[in-house]
């Protein structure tokens, strides 16, 4: 497994990824006193789908708008395919964007909307007509070219917006919350369609989203943003299984977090041992950064990595196991969520898959249970 890259400082010029197609170097954007994007450095490879994930106000949209050229960076630079974008206006950048609101031209038909970009390049009428028809076929909007945007459904508008952004065959496509305006069923469908189109056309995607599920399924890599900074960059599984900070652990999926101290000199062999007072047991963690000795740390355990049982687990020795009482059970169909109040008073969240249909006697509310987990389950975080 790749270790998560903490983005302490930007990579020096000599060490940067040689295959990087988009390079963001020390990029900062301030609006008055507010720093929207704070010293972000980032390399994006050709052909990948990079998801910028963050809450509102995290700076992800500002970063995207700087890539498109709608905002001027306060400092730092953006390089696309080896060209410095600082002085290049949006209409000359080799970049197209799909807007969150789609921004379709209301007075033009679908065909005219899609043709707009090609007309700006001064292509021939016949060529424009052919390419428009082709891209509308790809997004499965064939036959609807004469409609006006207000005659389309949300999903159809989304596809027109995508076609309009793709018809110029940009090397880089920016997508601002591409699925936000769609309902749930349509989102899942469109998500896979987007992946399909991206692979077919070999475009590099940068997707901005606040939806972790969207980021996980779309992205080959994610960059998690908070307060204008990139907190962690990694593959979806890197981010989920090895979050770099408490913020990331908490933002992506749900997590049980406990404060604790590393016991003894953690530098030796064997698993790290962490005393967690409000957990009421010692946590043994197999994989943990070695540098954390005697400091305050946090252990993060994902709900699905905790076992639930009626009997005390064997050979726990007071480690990685706590007793508690089930307070709530939420049946979700595929999984059930258990809220278990442990004896220290804290409540843990545990999810179990419902693998059997009407199997053995299920665990009920107010039942005493034991929670336990493997050494590999806890993630130890220093910040």
């Amino acid at each position, binding site marked *: 497994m790749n270790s998560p890259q903490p983005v302490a400082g930007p990579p020096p010029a000599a060490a940067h990824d040689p295959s990087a197609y988009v390079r963001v170097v020390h990029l900062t954007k301030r609006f008055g006193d507010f720093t929207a994007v704070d010293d972000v450095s980032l390399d994006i490879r050709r052909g990948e789908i990079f998801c910028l994930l963050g809450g509102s106000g995290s700076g992800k949209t500002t970063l995207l708008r700087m890539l498109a050229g709608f905002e001027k960076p306060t400092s730092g630079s953006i390089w696309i395919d080896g060209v410095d974008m600082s002085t290049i*206006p949006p*209409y000359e950048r080799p970049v197209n964007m799909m*807007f969150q609101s789609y*921004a*379709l031209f209301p*007075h033009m038909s679908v065909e005219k909307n899609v043709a707009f970009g090609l007309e*700006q390049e001064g292509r021939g009428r016949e060529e424009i007509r052919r390419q428009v028809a082709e891209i509308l076929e790809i997004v499965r909007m064939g036959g609807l070219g004469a409609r006006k945007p207000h005659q389309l459904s949300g999903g159809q508008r989304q596809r027109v917006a995508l076609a*309009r952004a793709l018809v110029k065959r940009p090397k880089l496509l920016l997508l601002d919350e591409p699925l936000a305006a769609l309902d749930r069923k349509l989102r899942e469908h469109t998500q896979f369609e987007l992946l399909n189109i991206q692979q077919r056309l070999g475009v590099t995607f940068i997707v901005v989203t606040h939806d972790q599920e969207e980021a996980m399924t779309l992205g080959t890599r994610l960059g998690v943003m908070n307060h204008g900074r990139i907190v962690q960059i990694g593959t979806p599984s890197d981010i989920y299984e090895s979050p770099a900070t408490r913020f990331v652990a908490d933002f992506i999926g749900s997590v049980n977090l406990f404060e604790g101290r590393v016991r003894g000199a953690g530098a030796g062999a064997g698993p790290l041992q962490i005393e967690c007072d409000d957990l009421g047991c010692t946590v043994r963690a197999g994989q943990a950064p070695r540098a954390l000795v005697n400091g305050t740390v946090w252990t993060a355990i994902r709900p699905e990595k905790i076992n639930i049982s009626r009997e005390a687990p064997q050979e726990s020795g007071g480690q990685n196991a706590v007793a508690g009482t089930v307070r709530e059970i939420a049946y979700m169909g595929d999984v059930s969520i258990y809220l278990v109040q442990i004896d220290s008073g804290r409540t843990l969240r545990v999810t179990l898959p419902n693998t059997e249909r009407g199997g053995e006697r299920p665990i009920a509310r107010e039942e005493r249970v034991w929670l336990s987990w493997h050494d590999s389950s806890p993630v130890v975080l220093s910040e």
Partner: protein
Amino acid sequence: MRLTRTSGRRLVAGIPTLWLLLLFLVPFLIVFRVSFSEVRLAIPPYTPLIAWHHGRPSLELHTSAYAFLFTDPLYISSYLYSLKVAAVSTLLCLLLGLPMAYAIARASDATRPVLLMLVVLPFWTSFLLRVYAWIGLLNTNGVINNVLLTLGIIHEPLVMMQTDFAVYIGIVYSYLPFMILPLYANLEKHDITLLEAAADLGAPPWRAFLRITLPLAVPGIVAGSLLVFIPAVGEYVIPTLLGRTDQLMIGRVLTDEFFENRDWPVASAVAILMLLLLVVPILLFQRYQRREVEAEAGETP
């Protein structure tokens, strides 16, 4: 409950209807009727609609007033001149008003109310006074000539009064707010992301303006143009105070017929014909508006 609601609704709709009937339709019918009579030296100074011959009433409709309008070239040329002045003034207002409205719509939240206020500010002074003020500015020994003479830019005073130029100045100055306000109301609603999308697709700002902003501003342009054009055609005060004496606008011809010549039938015919000239663009505008409303209704199904 139901009764009071419907009667309340009737009252609300009834007052303006009554207003229009009494103060617009009735006078119009009177004018219309007068236009089909002949002038005579009496009170009132026109022939009655119904004449009695041997104890039997007969309808007396004379079209001589209309015929007269087409025989004397004064009327035709006044109509054409009025249309020309109104059209040129509307165009000038549009050329001036569009950038102004655009600037106001794009101004910051703090300055926008101030700018709008400045547009409306002239209405606080009497229209007549403001036109008189232009005389003081444009006169042979007026402010503009004096300044230019003092600066040595000209050596003889420019003749600006009683020219087309002065009429254009007066009309454009007076009617510019009626162009700016509907344009502003339209431009202010424009979605800026559309321009960003245009830029993103490779359109430089001027092309984005031509292909996106301008087409979307057409309802505002039409509304503003009609608000300037229609009153400008019948404008009386400005051409009378600032304009030429050898070429009259139709509004001046109309008042002259009434008050100087006391030829009410011809004056009425002039008014009716002017109304017809103006009704055509108004009808076009209404048809256009209805199409707009339908399109907008379709947008939110």
